């Protein structure tokens, strides 16, 4: 990662701690193994690209406020689901009385399901704050250009008492049995919010990042994608 930019993040973290403003940071890590289990490519980069959905989610939680607008864009509180439908309801974005540590709801995608959780794509469009889906999602399967989506690993929570950073790592594996190499250029995180009562926020993209370089998964190889979210506590 870029050392000048990293210095700015360090400055941001320290300022946040001094002023008691919560600072969250997110990272992507990709690792490719060939059929013999040998690591042939690794990539680590920051996720810069929480999209409008994620900011609206955060605002609704901070203010404890319902979503309430049918327009999507600056100044409106709602989400756009992965199919492009704008959703709002008489309940805040992101709320759940259901378990989200499992693979029914939350960020952990189930086996064979490319609709939510960590997703990968081949698109090369620049990142946009208005993104609500991957540009070209790589579908689940074993056909040409497909990857097999494995059930996402359980959340892994760690706390560093030195830096006061609480971190959550989410991992998902993708197997390539397509018969050819697969190029990955974009990654996304899609949350599946329980739909019940009057709340219908659905499956929505929270972050989409374009990879700093193409990651190639060889036929019979495996891709491991880790998405880490961390929050610096003041004490």
């Amino acid at each position, binding site marked *: 990662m870029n050392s000048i*930019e990293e210095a*700015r993040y360090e400055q*941001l973290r320290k*300022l*946040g701690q001094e*002023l*008691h*403003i*919560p*600072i*969250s*940071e997110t990272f992507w890590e990709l690792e490719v193994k060939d059929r013999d289990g040998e690591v042939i490519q690794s990539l680590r980069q920051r996720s*810069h690209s*929480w999209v*409008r959905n994620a*900011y609206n*989610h*955060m*605002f609704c*939680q*901070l*203010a*404890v*406020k*319902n979503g*309430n607008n049918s327009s999507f864009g*600056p*100044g409106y*509180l709602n989400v756009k689901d992965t199919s492009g439908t704008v959703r709002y309801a*008489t*309940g*805040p974005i*992101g*709320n*759940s*009385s*259901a*378990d*989200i*540590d499992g693979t029914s709801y*939350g*960020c*952990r995608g189930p086996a064979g399901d490319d609709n939510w959780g960590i997703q990968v794509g081949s698109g090369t469009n620049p990142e946009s*704050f208005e993104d609500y889906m991957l540009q070209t999602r790589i579908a689940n399967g074993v056909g040409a250009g497909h990857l097999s989506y494995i059930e996402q690993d359980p959340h892994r*929570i760690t*706390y560093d008492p030195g830096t006061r950073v*609480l971190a*959550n790592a989410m991992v998902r594996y993708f197997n390539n049995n397509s018969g050819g190499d697969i190029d990955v250029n974009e990654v996304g995180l899609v*949350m599946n*919010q329980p*739909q*019940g*009562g*009057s*709340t219908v926020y659905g499956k929505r993209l929270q972050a989409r990042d374009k990879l700093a370089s193409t990651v190639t998964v060889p036929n019979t190889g495996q891709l491991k994608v880790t998405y880490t*979210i961390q*929050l610096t*506590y*003041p*004490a």
Partner: protein
Amino acid sequence: MVSEEEKLYEDLRRLGQRLHIPISETFWDLEVRDGSGKVVQRLRQRSHSWVRNAYNMMFCYLAGKDLSNGSFGAGYLSLKETGGAVRSGGGPVCLSQSATVDTTSMGYRGPAGNDAYGILVGSGTNPEDFESYALHVKITNGTGAGQLTYVQSESHAINWNPGTLTMKNDLARFFNNNSGADVSVNEVALALRGYGPGGSVPYHYMSARDLLVATVTVPDTGQLKVTYTVQLTYPA
């Protein structure tokens, strides 16, 4: 507010925007009127003091994670309600998926005569503490000595500033003094009413407690208005 500190907040906001890291800021405004409606005291200060409950709720919704630890403290994901009990369970933030939080039944809007949640005021002077889960000395609802009448919280007022790309939520609550004497306010707090986590029983969780930079005195027959503002700077 202190201009040197305000400069640091400005630096933080700009840096956050540049790096696409969401920066949230919170403020308290207090205004006192006497019995004839004249403003007799004003105070505006930043809220520095989101407590552990608020950070844990924030972490859980960022990570899509349940509040799953029975212990409370550094490294644990749980909440401590205003009564002191630690709550955890198979669910994330403590609001039901189908309940509205824009009204006074759940969320941050306290109902009339209710001093259990919403914006709360107190007379305690203990320093701010990240581990706080209740006001030091809450001023209770009523008309007896040392009490204030808690009026129903006003509706959320949402405002978008296209120049600064800031989304803002103002939440106001009025408190009437019919106690027969002055009432001194030294601390303010925001408490949430929500289910769970992972259940259907409502609990109250304090998210922020701030010590006021100066005592605010509400005269007999006077009125106090407290406004809590949360704002988030968007990158676009």
